[in-house]
């Protein structure tokens, strides 16, 4: 027990500079969000407000139209996660389990898709979306368009991560099922996928966070107020304004980050378990 205590103290001591830096922005967010307007720009700056005020939260909720932004973000995130999984899981399975001539080219192809940052492809993305007929217009200003784009940019990382995990799942399990007369598909469904769940959860959470936090593509594609995402609305409180209300901005950022942080915390267990799967011998 004593060794563990000593080890804990040492570990926290070593990690503390990083932890301070990580928590610092959140502390700033909370401190600024709870200040009334008049105290936000105080010189010299203070941590604790003289008068605590929660007014920035409802004000920000109105200004940033969070009542429509949050559902919009959720739709886009769940949609892109679903798309990413549907596309990446089969591909990862193929990379991990099957041999095929195109394998090295496919890997290189995936890597190349990572090299093109969305911010540089804006004009091209928009043209493409405008050229695809959908509903009464095109894919522009639709959540589906954004979902498709997010899914595409997530493919490389998801396939890479999932195939690494899948390769680490021993084949014996599936093979045992084959030997017992199980068809291939049933073997996958009953034996393989349950073991793959942690990896899939990790992949889903990464894709979710990406969709939630992404700015440039959402800015380009989503025009109407009610479709804009939480991140878009929060940044719009700052960008290009003649006068910025920082307490509202911080309140918005706080609310925008909370759900994602919760998802991450919840799935953190899976991340560790998923990562240690490869250690099963």
């Amino acid at each position: 027990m004593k060794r563990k205590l000593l080890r804990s103290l040492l570990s926290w001591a070593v990690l503390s500079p990083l932890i301070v830096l990580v928590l610092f922005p959140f502390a700033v967010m909370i401190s600024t969000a709870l200040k009334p307007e008049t105290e936000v720009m105080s010189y010299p700056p203070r941590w604790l407000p003289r008068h605590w005020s929660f007014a920035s939260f409802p004000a920000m909720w109105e200004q940033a139209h969070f009542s429509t932004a949050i559902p919009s973000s959720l739709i886009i995130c769940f949609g892109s996660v679903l798309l990413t999984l549907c596309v990446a899981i089969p591909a990862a399975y193929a990379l991990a389990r099957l041999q095929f001539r195109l394998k090295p080219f496919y890997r290189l192809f995936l890597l190349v898709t990572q090299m093109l940052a969305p911010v540089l492809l804006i004009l091209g993305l928009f043209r493409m979306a405008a050229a695809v007929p959908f509903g009464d217009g095109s894919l522009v200003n639709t959540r589906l368009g954004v979902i498709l784009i997010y899914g595409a940019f997530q493919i490389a990382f998801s396939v890479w991560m999932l195939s690494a995990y899948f390769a680490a799942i021993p084949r014996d399990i599936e093979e045992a099922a084959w030997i017992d007369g199980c068809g291939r598909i049933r073997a996958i469904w009953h034996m393989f996928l349950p073991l793959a769940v942690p990896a899939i959860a990790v992949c889903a959470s990464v894709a979710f966070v990406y969709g939630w936090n992404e700015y440039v593509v959402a800015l380009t594609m989503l025009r109407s107020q009610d479709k804009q995402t939480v991140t878009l609305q929060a940044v719009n409180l700052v960008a290009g304004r003649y006068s910025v209300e920082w307490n509202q901005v911080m309140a918005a950022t706080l609310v925008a980050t909370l759900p994602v942080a919760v998802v991450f915390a919840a799935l953190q267990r899976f991340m560790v378990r998923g990562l240690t799967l490869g250690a099963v011998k």
Partner: protein
Amino acid sequence: MGRQATGFGRRAALGGAASLPLLRPTWASAAETVHFVVAEYSNATGPYFQQMADEFHKANPDIEVNIDVVNWNSLLQTLQTDISGGTTPDLSIIGTRWLLDFVKDGVAEPLDSFMTPQFRNRFVPIFLQPGSIGGKVYGLPIAASARAMFYNKEMLTKAGFPNGPATWNDVVAAAKKVKAAGAYGFGLQGKEIETDVYWYYALWSYGGELVNKQGKAVAFDSPAGVKALTLYKMMIDQGLTETAVTSYNREDLQNLFKQGRLSMVITAPFLIGQIAKESPNLQYGIVPVPKGTTESTYAVTDSIVMFKNSKVKKSAFKFLDFIFTKEPRVLFNKNEGFLPTTKAVAEDPYFANDPRLKVFVDLMPRAHFAPVIVGWEDVAKDVIDALQSVYLGHAQPAAALKRASQQADQVL
């Protein structure tokens, strides 16, 4: 048909609140949607235009106006992607400085055919000018503002200028006293948009010009320009401005001023509203931009343009007609703190009798508008780069301006 339409529009607008037309339109018209991109000036902008859209729709049930609110930083990008992708809106607010590029690309629709003489007459002529290119009106002035010097009465009185500084020499003298008293003297913008304009105040006050008469070559590297930039550099070196000039954009300077830490700043009328809301106890005055050899100021407009491939031009213009009547304009200017662009608003007692706004309005005869040239943003960037290099002490004024003029000439 035209006369009947304006009849409805006028009556509904003057009535103010939603009022149903007494007569149903006699022509068959399908429901049309006008798509309008609005650039956001403040929290009030979006709701204001939405209110206008709703009122217009009540008066014209067959036309619906969709508002897209975009912030200024993303506006150019938004319009570019729209035009490039062929999904242009019908109407949009743009910075008038972009108008020439729009027209050259053939995306803007000339409005003359829609404008009746009475419509044209509503506007204060000087504001219609920047929106006219080649004799045709492409942009209607939705927002207009000029610049003047705000000064802190308390600090400047102690410095010996109870009515504010009149010339640059006054500014320097006052700043010296303010600095000795422990505050910042003259606010100098060194970052982000309109950093170049902040220097143009001095340039124009010494009789300099931005571009030559034909608009084909820059003229800011003249002796007047060098004198103006040397003046600013001298003020920085002597500590008469805020420290680390290049980390202050206009909003930062305004914040310093509102907190009473800066005694002088040149900016637009909307600061009046901000001070009233955030620092109501601040004693301040407004005087014209300091004089060098001549008086001048910068006047800027933003325009509403109609896009050429709009399919609902008549309806779009109806909406324009509506928002350029008196009440909508009064409300807009009150919300945002801009100068009146229509005669009706200028004569409205609220604006005509406001002594603070009067300073701005009086400056208009000597105002310089942004020159109508292609690639305004490019030229502005070259100038800002030069200014920043001088402010940081990396270059001498004459050399920096020369370099900027060479780069800018390539654009023109």
